[in-house]
């Protein structure tokens, strides 16, 4: 007998992707009407895949989906929307050059004759905006509005389409803590109005704060459903990763020596004229890990691109061991002994369709060691690649395997193996462990510490507060394109304090900040 109180019921869901990866294996998932239900798990646990199927973006290989007691076949988002399901994606699904109102009515445009009735689109936007207390500017272009408002536009998009079941995919990942608090208020408001909310996250505190029940996933399987009140944070973390998360990284105290990287008074305006870096100066010294903490989008990405000469600064200088890097090209910078773990491994870090071996030699293939006359020395290449695969525990059938067939963690190990094995003097590690499994994360963090203790200078950029606070010897905080705080010692820092700096509530005096610049 169908339980009418169940809004969503997914039974025995299995999903195998065309590349052979089984993202979900016989998963059962059920959500009661009017509850806030957390779907938890590490990156790659299969949460997103499960939700994509619920929203009709993917179809299950096996299994059954029942919405409000009615078995459905969700072949496309259109079908899902018609069943009252709405999804707010982690990466916003908005058209930047269109206005907020145009984005909201896209696909259901009000018309006057054959033409769009834009005034009506604005009216609809305002109506829903007021009803749900989600403030947006209907006439602003989406590319001009802040992240928090973009998320509201996303939520409004779902509500305007009559969504009663809202899926939120890591909604707080891009928000400041005030914005998060505001979002939670809104979510509770929705719940009171009878909406059902599925909340994907891996932030334990948030989950405890806002959800009624939770489903925990691991390795493509469901680990069970729990009342939020009944489980402790430790329980959840054990269920998610199968053991207690080891966050502590053992490291000796840093003894920084000579300056390797010097960044002096760098300014940068992005293509839309927004000031992304405003007079940034700092140095990184041999033997230390300098961390950059901050909410994403506060100039970190621009800075990292500049350090590797992917984009030139408007003014200011960047030198590595006294040599200017701007305009010199990546091979010159690599020659200086700089290595770089990029934020986006599939765009910059690796060529997915190339073999592991080809990916491992991309920075050194021109070196005499790998060439015999005009030809490659294939033996030397095989040997180096096999050695790296072994040293960095890359799980694969052979070095000839395509990189895209590996798991996220193993792809990252390929990147790391290359970047760490070139005897680097300076390592720029941008989100080095984002979205990979615990084992690989630990491995990479240990390697990073090891290299710094052997004399490499490390600049670590990470959105993961735990990571940046645990790994860094000293730490700066970015906010609004400026350094707002510098801590020589990270061991005494509290999360609360960091939060205040990250959100721009507090900033140190110019003198305190200037300490990060060791001239």
């Amino acid at each position: 007998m169908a339980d009418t109180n169940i809004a969503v019921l997914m039974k025995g869901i299995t999903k195998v992707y065309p590349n052979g990866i089984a993202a979900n294996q016989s998963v059962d998932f059920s959500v009661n009407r009017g509850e806030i239900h957390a779907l938890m798990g590490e990156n790659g646990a299969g949460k997103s895949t499960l939700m994509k199927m619920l929203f009709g973006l993917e179809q299950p290989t096996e299994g059954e989906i029942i919405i409000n007691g009615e078995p459905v076949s969700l072949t496309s988002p259109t079908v899902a929307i018609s069943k009252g399901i709405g999804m707010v994606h982690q990466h916003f699904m908005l058209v930047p050059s269109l206005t907020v109102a145009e984005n909201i009515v896209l696909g259901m445009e009000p018309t006057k004759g054959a033409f769009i009735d834009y005034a009506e689109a604005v009216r609809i936007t305002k109506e829903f905006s007021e009803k749900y207390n989600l403030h947006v500017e209907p006439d602003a272009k989406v590319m001009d509005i802040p992240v928090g408002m973009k998320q509201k536009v996303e939520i409004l998009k779902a509500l305007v389409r009559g969504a009663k079941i809202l899926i939120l995919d890591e909604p707080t990942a891009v928000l400041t803590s005030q914005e998060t608090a505001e979002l939670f208020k809104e979510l509770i408001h929705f719940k009171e109005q009878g909406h059902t909310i599925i909340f994907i996250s891996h932030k334990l505190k948030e989950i405890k704060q806002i959800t009624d029940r939770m489903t925990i996933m691991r390795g493509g399987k469901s680990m069970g459903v729990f009342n939020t009140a009944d489980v402790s944070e430790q329980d959840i973390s054990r269920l998610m990763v199968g053991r207690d998360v080891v966050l502590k990284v053992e490291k000796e105290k840093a003894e920084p020596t000579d300056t390797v990287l010097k960044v002096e008074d760098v300014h940068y305006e992005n293509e839309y004229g927004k000031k992304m870096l405003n007079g940034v100066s700092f140095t990184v010294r041999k033997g230390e890990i300098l961390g950059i903490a901050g909410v994403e989008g506060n100039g970190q990405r621009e800075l990292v691109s500049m350090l590797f000469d992917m984009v030139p600064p408007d003014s200011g200088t960047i030198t590595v061991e006294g040599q200017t890097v701007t305009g010199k090209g990546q091979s010159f910078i690599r020659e200086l002994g700089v290595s770089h773990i990029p934020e986006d491994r599939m765009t910059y870090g690796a060529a997915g369709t190339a073999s592991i071996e080809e990916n491992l030699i991309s920075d050194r293939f021109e070196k005499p060691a790998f060439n015999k006359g005009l030809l490659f020395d294939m033996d030397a290449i095989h040997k180096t690649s096999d050695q790296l695969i072994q040293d960095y525990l890359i799980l694969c059938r052979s070095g000839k395997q395509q990189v895209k067939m590996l798991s996220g963690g193993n792809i990252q190990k390929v990147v790391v193996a290359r970047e760490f094995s070139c005897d680097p003097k300076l390592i720029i590690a941008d989100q080095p462990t984002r979205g990979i499994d615990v084992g690989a994360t630990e491995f990479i963090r240990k390697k990073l510490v090891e290299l710094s203790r052997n004399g490499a200078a490390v600049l670590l950029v990470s959105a993961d507060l735990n990571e940046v606070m645990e790994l860094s010897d000293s730490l700066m905080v970015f906010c609004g394109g400026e350094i707002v705080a510098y801590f020589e010692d990270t061991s005494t820092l509290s999360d609360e304090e960091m939060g205040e700096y990250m959100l721009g509530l507090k900033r140190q005096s110019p003198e305190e900040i200037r300490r990060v610049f060791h001239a």
Partner: protein
Amino acid sequence: MRKNLKFEIIRGAASILLALAVAMIFIFIISDVPFEALYNLIIGPFTKLRYLWLILERMIPIVFTGLGVCVMFQANQFNLAGEGTLFFGGLVAAAVAIYLPMPPVLHIIVCIVIASVVAAAAMLIPALLKTKLGASEMVSSLMLNYILLQLGVYILNWHMADRTQGATMSHLFQDTARIPTLVPRTNLSWGIIIALAMTALVALFMYRTKWGYAIRMVGQNQSFAKYSGIKVAGTIVLCQVIGGLLSGMGGAVEVLGYYDRFKWRQLPGYGWDGVTIAILAKNNPVFIPFAAFFMSYLKQGCNLMQTYTDVPAEMLSIIQAVIFLFFAAEQFLSKYRQKLVVKGAKEELAEKKAEGGQKGAEA
């Protein structure tokens, strides 16, 4: 990996069968003697040894353009000027063959080298426009085809034409510049050997040298290549220059091996054939001669069909387009592939389970 190869072969065969099926439908609609036409198309080319020589002859220019396209497409450069550079390379070789007297063999080599260099230089136009200004190499290379054609015809008409001849054509090449025939009493020249040698060289270049590696990495992920320190702009220029070099060489070899005068007043179409066979060969130089042989065989079949029946030889372009479309279609038969993959994944899971069970038992 092996499964993949097997799948690719099945898919290739299916594409070809589909194209032939389309051809068959056309033939049955338009021909009064459909079976004879089909016989000539498919079996015809194998009925006489002479036809084999003809097939090999026709292979020569398209092996060169095909190799050129391979090199450029592997770097993801959609340069389509193989057509124009082959034409112009032929013209340049002809000019050298007529006006620069030289000892035998050396004359041939100089003709080919100058033609290749000039064609390679022409390719600098789309290549540099791309790297210096970011202009689409596709549009500029297409324009280059027409520019080279008109320029070539102008040179032929106004500076190289032999007025004693009825039609517009150049003076006779000097004998020292003509590539000798390989098989007596045929037109099959040593050009085929040059073509095969170039195939080996290009394959070696692409898979065993740092330049080939750079070209492939730029094609597979340009951001990654740049980030790794590969000189992307230089590589993009290099691959197009090599593409031009190869098609220019093809023009020279074709003109000196097959003709005694320069006679082209239209683009001969070998550049586009080169694109087709590069697609058939999946941009792998090693497969180019096979793909070229196949195309050449189809061409011969179509010619025989036209000679002996009422079906025009241009049927070829329809067959060619259909094969081309299906070969390049990633999702063609993808359901079948998906089944293979899912089966593979399940087997692997089962294996792992069995292993896990064993370990458990041991513990």
